[in-house]
C-alpha cells in the first residue's frame, strides 16, 4: 500500500517541481521567481523525505532537517537585496 502512496507522491512532487520551475523561468516579476524558488526548496525537502521512505533509510533525514532550517535564508537574502541592496547593514 505504501508503495502506491510513494509513487503517487513522487508523481505529485515531480509535477510540482516542474510547475515551480515554469513559474521561476517565466516570472514575470522577480518576486514571482523568488517565491517559486522558495517553493522548490520546500518540495525538495519533501523529495528527500520521500526518497528516505521509498528506500527505507533514515540517513537522509538530517539533510531534510538542514534544508528546512537554512533553506529559507536564501529567500530572505534575495528579498533583502531587492528591498535594501545591502543585505548586511
Amino acid at each position, binding site marked *: 500500500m505504501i508503495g502506491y502512496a510513494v509513487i503517487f507522491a513522487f508523481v505529485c512532487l515531480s509535477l510540482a517541481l516542474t510547475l515551480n*520551475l515554469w513559474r521561476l523561468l517565466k516570472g514575470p516579476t522577480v518576486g514571482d521567481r523568488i517565491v517559486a524558488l522558495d517553493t522548490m526548496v520546500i518540495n525538495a525537502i519533501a523529495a528527500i523525505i520521500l526518497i528516505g521512505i521509498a528506500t527505507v533509510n533514515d540517513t537522509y533525514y538530517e539533510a531534510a532537517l538542514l534544508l528546512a532550517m537554512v533553506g529559507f535564508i536564501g529567500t*530572505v537574502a534575495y528579498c533583502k537585496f531587492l528591498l535594501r541592496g545591502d543585505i548586511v*547593514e
Partner: protein
Amino acid sequence: MAVPLMLYTLVILPFLAALLIAIGSSHGRALHSGLAAAGSALGLALILGIAGRVIGGDVLAVSVPWVPVIGLDFSLMIDPLGLMFAGLILGIGLLVVIFGHFYLASDEATGRFFASLMLFQGAMLGIVLSGNVLLLLVFWELTSLSSFLLIGFWRDKAEARQGARMALAVTGGGGLVLIAGMVLLGTIAGSFDLMTILERGDIIQASPLYPVMLVLILIGCFTKSAQFPFHFWLPHAMAAPTPVSAYLHSATMVKAGVFLLARLWPVLSGTELYTVIVTSVGLITMLMGAWVALFKHDLKGILAYSTISQLGLLVMLLGFSLEMAAVAAVLHILNHAAFKAALFMSAGIVDHETGTRDIRRLGGLAKVMPITAIVATLAAAAMAGLPPLGGFISKEMMLDETLHVGLFGISWLVPVVATIAATLSVAYSLRLAVHLFFGKPREAEPHARAHDPGAGMWASPAFLVILAVLLGLVPMALAGPLVSSVAGAVIGNAAPPLGLALWHGVNVALGMSLAAVAIGALLLWRHAGLLRGYEAMRHLDAKALFDRTLGAADREVRKLIVATHSPSLQRMLFASFAVIVALVAEGALTGGGTLTGARAGQPASAVAIIAWGLLIAATIAVVRAQRQRFLVLIYISVIGLIITLAFVHFSAPDLALTQISVEVVTILLLLLALNLLPKTPPLLSSQPRRYRDALLAIGGGLGIGGAAWAMLTRNPNDPISSFHLANSYSGGGGTNVVNVTLVDFRAFDTLGEIIVLGIAGLAIFALLDTTSRGAAGARLRSWQEDMPHSPERHPLMFVMATRILLPLVLAVGIYIFLRGHNQPGGGFIAALVVAIAFLLQYLASGFDWTDARRRVGEHLLIASGVLVAMATGLGSLVFGANFLTSSFGYFQVPLVGEVELATALLFDIGVFAVVFGAVMQALAQLSQISQRAARAHAAQVEAQQQGSEP
C-alpha cells in the same frame, strides 16, 4: 651535559631568547636586553666549558636526518674553527648587548631590536656550527634576512630602508649563487656532510666542474664579506644602529664569507685558479678600502671602508694557499674582531655624546672624553698595526707571507701593494684617533655637552681593547694554543709551529712595517692636501649604479609582464581554459582505451529523469540570462538544489549536507558582492569572440562530461576503495568513511587544505582591507547606490525569528560535528552550519549589532584552527608514532553511556575553526566595503544637498 644536547642548546638558545623577547615586547628595555644577555652568556658558558676539549683535538658532532632524500641532515659539529667563531659571536654578542642596552633610548622598539639581534646570533651560530653544507645554506640565508631587519631598524629613515634593501639584494643574491656552488660541491664530493667533503679535496679539485663550483662559492663568500666589486653595500649598511654595525658589520656577519673560505680551505685552495682569484680580489679590496677610508668624513663610513680593507686582507691571506698565511689569517680574525668592535662602539659613544659623526666637526675630544679617547686610540693603534698591540703581530705576519707569493708571475706585486695598503691603513687609523681626540676643537657646538658616558657604555669597548693589547703583549699565552689549533682545523693538518712575538729580529717584514708607519704618518700630516686631490677626482657612485641596475631590471620585468600578461580577465581565462581543454583532448585522443567502461548502468527512474530535465532547463536559463546577474543567482540556486537531490539519490549524505550549507553561504557572499557590482554589465566582448568563447565552453563541457561518463561506467579502483571501507572502523575508529578519510587516512592532505584555506582567508583580508585607499578607494567613493531603499532596515519579525533560530542552528551544528566520525557530518559541515547561524544574525540584526556581540576575531579563529590541527599531528610524535597518527578509545560517561574519543576529533576542531574563520572573514570584509561605500555615498548626497540649499 651530553654533547648532542649541548650542541642543540647552543644553536637553539638565541632563537629561544628571540622568541621570549618578542613575546615580552611590551615590557621594558631591561627585560629585552636582560634576556638577550642571558642567552648570550649562557651560550658563552657552554662554549667555554668545552673549549679545552675542542682545542685539545676533539671534534664534537651530532646529526639527525632532516630531509634525507636530498642529503640534508640537521647535523652540528664543533671543531676549533667553529669554536673560535662561536666564541666571537657569543662573546662580542654579549658585549654588544650590554652596549646596546645603554645606547638605545628606552622609548625605542627595543623588543624588536634585541629579538632581531638574537635571531641573527642564532643564524650566525648555525653557520659556524653546521656539519652539513645544506644546513649551512639555511642559516646563511637567515643571516641575510635578520641583517635586513637590523639595518632597517629605524624604519622611518629612508637611508635605513634603502641600505637594508641593498644589503639584502647583494648578500641574498650572493646567497643564491652560493646555493648553486654548494650543491655542485656536494654533488662532486658525493656527500653534503662537511667532514666527508673536507676529506675529498683531491676528488673535488680533479673534477671538471671545479672551476664553475669555485667561482660560484667565491661569489657567495665575496658578497657576504663585502669584497670588491660587491663591497658597496657595507657602507650603506651603516644606517643601522651602531651596536648592529659593531656586531654584524665588523665582527661577525661580514666574517661569514671569510669563515666559509677558511672552512673549505682544504678542498678549495691550492689551485692556480683559486690563488689568482682570491689573492687578487683580496688585494684589490684591501687597497681600495684603505684608500677610500682615508677620505671619508663619517666616523662609521671610515670604519666601514676600513672593515672592507681588513676583510680584503683576510681574504688575501686565505688566497695565498700557504699554511703560515692561514695561521696569520686566524690570528688577524681575532685581532680585528677585538679592535674593530671597540672602534665601532667608540664611534657610537662619540655620536651619542656629541650628536654628530662628522670627523670634520669634531676634534680635541680627549679633554672632555678621556676614557673614550684612551679606548679608541688604543684600538686605532691596533688597527694601524703599531707595537705593542696585537694588530702589529698579525700585520707583520701578513707582510712576511706576501714575500712568498708571486701573482701573475711578478714576485714584487703582492708585497708592494700590500705595503701600500698597510701604509694607507696606518694613515686612516691615525687620522681617526688624531683628528677625533687631539688637536683643537673644531666646532664649539658638539663639544658643549660632550662628556664620557656611564661605565655601562664604555665597559664593552674597554674590555675589547684590553684584549687587543694583551694579544700584543702576551700573544702566546693568550691565543697561542687557540690559534694553532684553529689553524690546524683550517689547514686540515697540524699547523706549522707557531712563534707569536712582537720582536722577530731585523727582517724584511719589519722594514715593510716601519715604512708603512712612517709613510702613513707622513700621509696624515699631508692629509688636507690629499683630501683636496681626492675630492677633485671623479668617483663612481655605487649606489646610483645599483639603483640604475635595479631600475632597469624592474622596467624589463614590467615590459615582460605587460607583454605576456594581459589585464583582461576574459582573455586570461580563455587562455588557461583553452590550454586545459587542449591537454585533455590530446590525452583522450592519444591515450587509447574506450570512453565507455565495463560497468553496467543503473535504471533511471522517472523522477530522476524529471530532475535531470529541471537541471538542464535551469542551466540553459543561466546561460540565457547571463547579463542579468540577480536572475542568474536565482537560477544557480535551482541548480544547487537539484544537485543536493542528486547527492541524496546517489547515496552521498555527507555531500548533500555540504552542498546545502555551501549553497546558502555562497548566495549570501555573492549577494554582498553584487550590491557593489553593476547589476546588468555591458557587453564585454565582440560577437565573434563570444562565439569563440561559446565553442571553448562547449568543448570544456564535453571534456568534463566525457570524463565523468568514463569514470561512472567503470568499476571503482578497488584496492583503494575497499581498503578505506575495511579499515575505517578498525584503523580510524569511525564508521563514516568520508570523515575518517578526511581526518585520518588523508589527514595530511586536509592539513594542507586548511592551511591553504586560512591563507585564502588572510588574502581576502589583505585584498579587501585596502580597498578604501588608492584608485579602488576613489572608485568606491564615487559608487552610486542603484537599488531602491525600503524604509525598514531590520524587520522586527525577522530579527526575532533569527534570534530564536540561533541556538537551534548552533545545536544542530554541534550535533553534526560530534557525530561526524560515525555518521554523516564532521568539522567542515558543522563549521558551515555554525557560520550560517551567525550570518543569519548579521543579515537580520545588522553588522554593528552582531559584530559588537562577537568575542573571537576571524584571524584568531583561523590561526588557532591551523595550530590545533598541527598540534594534534605533532602530538602523535610525542608518543613515538608518525605525524598525524590518530588514536581513539572508548570511555564510560555517567548518564550518557559509552563515548568514543578520538584524536581525530581534535583535528576536526582545527578544521572547524579554520573553515568557520575563513567564511566569517569573507563576510566581514565584503560587508565592510559595502558599508564604507554606503557611508561615502551618504556623505556625498549630504554634501550635494548642503551645496544646493544656500
